[in-house]
């Protein structure tokens, strides 16, 4: 599978280095290594969800206890979480780090991913969620740290979009 293990490891290590102790996740191809790393880490709480919106509640509960968390999801999972984000995380001012595999961009070969790719950034903008796209390994640690800093300073959700050039290695 050409999902990048090296990039996944760098992202995972960056989350750990920035104090993330709980991740919620729903499997998706680009996230398989990240989820396995969380599973194999005895100091990480991994919560496997039935639907991504649950992760907003899990992260809110974790935050109330003082635990830093991240949501690992595909952009369609983000789209499935919107009410929880708006009437949960935004209404109640929860710092929320969403790490989103951004399917449906240039190079996408799966027809079913293409509509989500068209709307993800527009929906993030409409929700006034600050976001940035990570396309290189060099940017991972810095961007994850900066995203968490803003989330906690503003008490609001922020998003990092994991791009194809970062996550997918040409076979």
């Amino acid at each position, binding site marked *: 599978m050409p999902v990048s293990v090296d990039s996944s490891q760098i992202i995972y290590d960056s989350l750990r280095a920035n104090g993330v*102790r*709980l991740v919620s996740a729903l499997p998706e191809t680009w996230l398989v290594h990240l989820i396995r790393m969380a599973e194999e880490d005895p100091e990480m*709480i991994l*919560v*496997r*969800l*039935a*639907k991504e*919106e*649950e*992760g*907003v*509640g*899990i*992260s*809110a*509960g*974790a*935050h*109330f*206890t*003082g*635990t830093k*968390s991240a949501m690992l999801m595909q952009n369609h999972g983000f789209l499935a979480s919107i*009410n*929880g984000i708006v*009437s*949960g995380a935004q*209404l*109640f*001012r929860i710092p929320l780090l969403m790490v989103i595999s951004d399917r449906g961009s240039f190079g996408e070969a799966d027809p079913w991913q293409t509509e989500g790719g068209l709307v993800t950034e527009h929906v993030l903008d409409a929700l006034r969620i600050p976001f940035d796209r990570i396309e290189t390994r060099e940017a991972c640690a810095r961007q994850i740290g900066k995203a968490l800093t803003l989330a906690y300073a503003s008490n609001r959700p922020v998003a990092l979009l994991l791009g194809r050039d970062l996550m997918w290695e040409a076979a």
Partner: protein
Amino acid sequence: MRRLDALAAIYADLEECIVVTIMGAVAAELQSLGHRQNHFYLQHAMGLASSIGLGIALCRPELDVVVLDGDGSVLMNMGGLSTLGRYRPQRLTHVIFDNESLLSVGGFPTATSTGADLAGVAAAAGVPRTARVDTVEDFAAAFRAARTADELTTIVAKVDAHYEPPSNTKGFVTELGLLENRFQFARYLQTLGAD
């Protein structure tokens, strides 16, 4: 049974617990009995009260967590029951007040009025202990049994589709601000057991 009477029957016990409620009548009635800083009222994000309770329980497994949920909310996040059943936090008690109705938005009947059995769904989703109660006495007994059981329990309490706004409450809006409650609750949780 009246939900307010059920809440009153366990109000003293809740003092020792971390309490997460849904919006609407449950939040207003619990506040009418007396707000405490260990209560968080999720005034929207329907369905996620149990997810918040799970997040707290996973991070602070030594605490007793009580989620006061409703049939309308649970029906919006039935998958969440399978997540609860998967992780089975031992000290979480999940109460579902089932009035078979979306009471706060006109009283339209939910699917529990036509046979959906949420205790059955919870059990089938992997929740190890479930109970279904119709009286205040049975509810209080089931609640206390759940707290001593050291096993995730879902209690479905059948209650009347009735709500009378308590004094100092306009409709469902109480005097406690949403953010005041949220920050107070987080501070309480983070100082609990830290000394």
